[in-house]
Each structure stands twice: as C-alpha cells, then as structure tokens.
C-alpha cells in the first residue's frame, strides 16, 4: 500500500517537472546588428597632452596619436561607443552584477563609455603616476568631484538612478567619458566595427534603444520568439561640425 503511494508520488513529481521544463519559455533569443552613419562625421582632433609631460611622453611612444573620442568611426561607416540596450520588454533573468572597472591610463579613460546597471558597483582606478580628478556631472544622481592622487586606493561607488552621466577630469580637461547607468540587464557597446549583440533574451516584444553621446538616442521595436536571432541596424545622420 505504502510502496504504491510512494511510486505514484515520484511519478507525478517527475511528470510535473518534465511538463514545467517543457512548458517554460527558453531565454535564448538574440538581437544583433550594426550601428552606422550617413553623411560626413566631424574630424576628431589630436589631443595635445603637453601640460602633463608624462602623458605626452607615453602618447608619443604610440603608433597612432590619441584623438578625442566623441565620435569614433570605423570601416564601413561604423560608429563605435554606441550603447545599444533593451529599454522595454518582458522581464529577463537578471544577470549577476559584478564590478565595473573604469581606469585612468595615459591620461585617457578606459573604456571611454562604461555601462552599468543601477546599484552595480563601479571601481575607478588611477593607473597613472600623476593625479587625476573624477568629476561625474549627473543631473538626476548626486554630483561629486574627487581627486585621485597616484598610489591611492580605487574609488568604489554606485549610482542609484538610471542616467547618462558625462564624466570629466578637470586636471586634464581633454579627458572625457560617460557612465551609462541603465535599468536593463541587457546592453552592448559597439566596438570598432560598430556591431552589437544582445543575448539571452526571453521571447517577447522589445524596444531596443541606441544612444550615442553626440547624436542622441533612437529606438526600434522587435519581437523575438524562442531562440531566434533578429538583426537590427541603427543609422545616424551626422554633420561635420
């Protein structure tokens, strides 16, 4: 009597689990594509780092001079440093938030645009032999301004509201970057080929937004089903000045 009960219980449990597994939608969709531009982009000037002789020396040892990174283009009219992210859509499993590292090296911010989620820890490191100051200029989050002499520990912080926050160094005024704080856990920053890829999406309708610091945001809607890959392309119209 008892044995039959146990077998039935196990059987029902196994069947139920199989049904659950089969019935739950897989988070395996992908949205990918490229960000490009039409028109003539502005010429990015070479940065004169002479006020910091150490940086100037490092710069002169490089093969390519360091230029401003407001508009970085690549082969095939691609645009770099565009943040492509999910601005609306079904909830996806949250990815674990590990530390985002923002480095000051050779009087440049590496990376130029750092993307993070709300409340995700951000660590700012000074790898140079001279002082920098980190001055984020948010409008919604609280503003702060701290210097970071060489050899001092990294600054750890986080942002609690989504925002596109310009960051600058006042001591080296050419240093400029962005902290992009998002609510979404799916985002991608385009590299030199302008491509982006958002993986691990549950099926549903999504609004995907692309943001470039000079040219602003544009959005598109796309529906993803199962584990299919959808391709999107974003095109920015640019002017030389």
């Amino acid at each position: 009597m008892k044995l039959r009960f146990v077998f039935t219980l196990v059987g029902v449990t196994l069947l139920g689990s199989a049904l659950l597994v089969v019935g739950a939608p897989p988070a395996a969709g992908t949205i990918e594509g490229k960000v490009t531009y039409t028109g003539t982009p502005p010429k990015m000037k070479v940065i004169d780092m002479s006020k910091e002789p150490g940086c100037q020396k490092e710069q002169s040892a490089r093969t390519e001079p360091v230029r401003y990174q407001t508009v970085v283009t690549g082969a095939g009219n691609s645009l770099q440093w565009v943040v492509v992210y999910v601005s609306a859509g079904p909830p996806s499993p949250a990815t674990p938030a590990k530390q985002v590292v923002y480095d000051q090296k050779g009087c440049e911010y590496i990376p130029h645009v750092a993307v993070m989620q709300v409340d995700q820890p951000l660590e700012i490191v000074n790898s140079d032999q001279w002082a920098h100051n980190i001055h984020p200029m948010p409008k919604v989050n609280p503003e702060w301004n701290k210097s970071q002499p060489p050899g001092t520990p990294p600054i750890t912080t986080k942002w609690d509201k989504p925002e596109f926050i310009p960051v600058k160094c006042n001591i080296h005024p050419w240093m400029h970057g962005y902290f992009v704080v998002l609510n979404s856990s799916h985002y991608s920053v385009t590299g030199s080929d302008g491509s982006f890829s958002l993986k691990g999406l549950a099926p549903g309708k999504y609004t995907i937004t692309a943001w470039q610091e000079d040219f602003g945001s544009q959005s598109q809607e796309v529906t993803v089903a199962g584990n299919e890959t959808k391709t999107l392309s974003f095109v920015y119209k640019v002017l030389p000045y």
Partner: protein
Amino acid sequence: MGKTFTIVLVAITVVSAAFFIFHGQLLWLPEDVSVHGPGIDHQLMETMVGTGILFLLGQLVLCVFVWQSSGRKEGWKPRTFPGGPKPMVISAILAVGLEILALSFVGSKVWAGMYMNTPDSQALHIDVQAGQFAFYFRYAGPDSKFGELHPEKINQADGNFFGLDPRNDVAARDDVVTATMAIPVDRPIQLTMHSQDVIHSFYVRELRIHQDIVPGLMIPLHFTANKTGRFEIACTQLCGLGHYEMRAFLEVMPQDKFDAWLKQQESQ
C-alpha cells in the same frame, strides 16, 4: 641672557644674509628672457641692496645696544639716545623717503613701459583661454581673423575649449587651438586673456610676466621674448583642486620654425 640674544641674532642675521648673497642658481630668479625683464630685475636688485643694508643695520645695531645693555652694572643711570626721537624721525624720513621716491620714480617708468604703451602693430595676436585646470591658446589661422567666442558652446569633450561655432561662423573654422603656446623670438606678442570659470593667473618666471585672468574681462598683455627656449606657464591664482597641476608650456622659437609649427597645427 642679553649676550646670548646678541650672539643668536648675529648668527641668524649673518646666515640669512648669506643665503641672499650666495644664492646660487637654485634660490634665485631664473634667467630673464624678455625685453622688459631687465627693468624689473634692476628694480629688484636695487631694493635688495637697500633693504639688505637696512636689515643688517637694524638687526646688528639692536644687537650692539642689547650687548651693551647686558654688560652694565647695578646702579647704572639710563641714558637717552642723543637727540631723542628727532634723529629717528629725520633719518627714517630721509633714508626711507628718498628710497621710496627713487624706487617709485624708476618703477613707474618700468611699469608704464609694460602696461601703458600701445602694443606694436606688427604684434602676433594670441588668444588665451584659462579654465579649470588648463590653458588653451588660439591663433587666428590663415584668414587672420579670430572667430567669435560663445561660452554656451564650450564643449571640452569635443576639444571646443573656446566655444567656437565653426558651423555658423566662417572665421572660426580655421582658428588654430593648441595646448602649447609657441611664439617667434624677438617679435612683439599681444595676448588677449579670458577665463571661462574662475580667476586664474598667467605666470612665466623667465619672461617676468604675471597677470590674473578674470572671468568677464578680456585682459590684454604684451611682451617680447628675446631668447629661445622652453618655459613653463604656471597658474598662480587659486582656482580649485587642480590649481597645482594647472600649467602649459611656452616655446620660443626662431620665426621660421614657428611658421613651420603653425602650419603643422593648422593641418591637424
């Protein structure tokens, strides 16, 4: 105690004076590379000699009187300085007064030479922008016209330090903006200086020039460098946390090298 005071003060006086006299290269002004600089240096030396004499006299005479005072025995009848206060008043008015007249007269001429003569019509004009925490320089470019300044358009992220508007302002399109100030030697230079945020100051030791840059004002400054070299421009008006790191470099070069440099900057 009085004798100890004398010995200590004499030692202090002698050591202090020695460092002024035997200053070497480190504890002194750097060499002077401007046309108006010798006037300033001459004024400084005159003052140094005059005050040096007064310093030595003042401290050592005090020492002599203290030494004498401490050597006197019980029952000493105090003596007034011969003539009372009158010789003090007269010598102060004469010595200091004459010194003041001489220094003011000569100094005013040097000062007027720096600030109160019209700048040379052949001067090279350079626009200087100061902002937390760097100096930027602007040359007019091939059209010899400076574009207009629009503070609301300042965008350091793009390297638009001056707030130029090349889209709408044709004169601004060829303006050359640099972080290093290069000038030809032996040519009058006319600076127009402005600040985008707080008060900064433009100080080049070797040129003996020093001028605060005040937001809201366009401040002219002219000089002529008569020696080539690389000199530092330091900010000397407290402007925030990066004040100690606010600098730029001045390169004085022969006219032909300067022309080549400017051409190279224009092409970038």
